[in-house]
């Protein structure tokens, strides 16, 4: 998953991540737990997360 510079760090994606794969500190960053499932994308209020194709 790719997080754009629009990310503000609200943490919504992290709360809905089933793999505990998102670290929030001013912005979101995926750790090695990320499976690329893409569930976080729909929880981002400003469309700042994109799947890497």
């Amino acid at each position: 998953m790719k997080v754009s510079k629009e990310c503000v760090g609200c943490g919504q994606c992290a709360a809905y991540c089933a793999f505990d794969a998102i670290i929030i500190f001013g912005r979101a960053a995926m750790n090695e737990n990320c499976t690329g499932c893409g569930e976080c994308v729909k929880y981002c209020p400003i469309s700042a997360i994109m799947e890497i194709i």
Partner: protein
Amino acid sequence: MKTVIIGAGLGGLLAGAKLTKAGYDVEIFERLPFIGGRFTNLPYKGFKLSTGALHMIPHGSRGPLAQMLREVGAHVTIIDSNPMAVIRKSNDEIIAFHDFRNELSLTEQVKLGTVLAYSLKFKPRSDLSFRDWVLKYFDDEFLFKLADSFCGWSLSLKAKDVPAREMLEIIDNMYLYKGSGIPLGGCSAVTDALSGIIRSNGGRIHTQSYVERIIIDNDVATGVIVGKKTIDADIVISDIGHFETSRLYECMDLEYLNKISNVKPSKGIKICLSSDEPLIGHSGVFFTPYAQRINGINEVTNADPSLAPPGKHLVMSHQAIITDDLEAEINLGLLDIAQLFPGKKYEALLIQSYSNGWPVNRASSGSDNGNRTPVENLYIVGDGAKGKGGIEVEGVALGVRNAMAQIGVS
């Protein structure tokens, strides 16, 4: 009358509840998978955190939001905080909020009463900031720090960035409605109750539905396009702020565009803490005027233990963002917490920040542009169109009341 509402945040839901109750046919489109926007619960590690606002209603059970909930028949239990708020002094002593006057000299106390009474009656000129208003009459470090702490906590702004007029409207409302309360069940108790009312009144709420365009015909809103489908409407209400709304149609009013693009959103950081023992011990606001960054803290589990797993407390701090270095701002906040609660065991659960496209308030307090747009039958509600003197969600409720008056719904 068919009404389409863009966004199922608090503003959209309040408008939807008022309109369905008045017999309007309402359809709400929300782009996220859940409703409530920045005023609902965020489940996290067994805690009920919040998507945006703290689990708090600034004027509690007597305020504009509570009043509107009662009007539409939304049942929410609001536990008024007692004490309403306390202040942590520079020597670590904690005093009740209303006793802040005792920290001033006798002369200053008398002066404060007179100046406040005068300024509430004759509002200062509109370009005077709250800080400059305080500075005009007082030379007192405690008052400056308290002003910043209060403005930071309630508006995510420094006192220098709040118009004195807006702050005096807020003080007026504090006398009128009194202090804060906690919605039992957290923010989602409010937004879920509203969606229940809307649905039982025949309204429809669609999640994961993105409005692509607002259809305008001869400067009149006639509907929206959602997923290539046209939905006709007599009224369109947008809960996404003036600017974002203006991008959904071809706005030709340059004066309006100029005005709304100059509006600055307010930005802040919320640190959510888990603790085995209470750090504060009541559900009122804990103002921290002498902290470097943290403006205030509350411990909602004293009012509603269900917001944390059994035996745990949920504590949330709030700070306005002062510089552009967000990571440094967060670190200063964490340092403040460590210094405020030495020797206490707690854990930072989640640190949430809000700015730019997903801010604390789309229009910082005092810079709201009302509910109207250059397009007939297109109205704005929510935190981009708050009513005067309304702190956060109280401002949203006052803004919705203004919009309803313009539509003709009491």
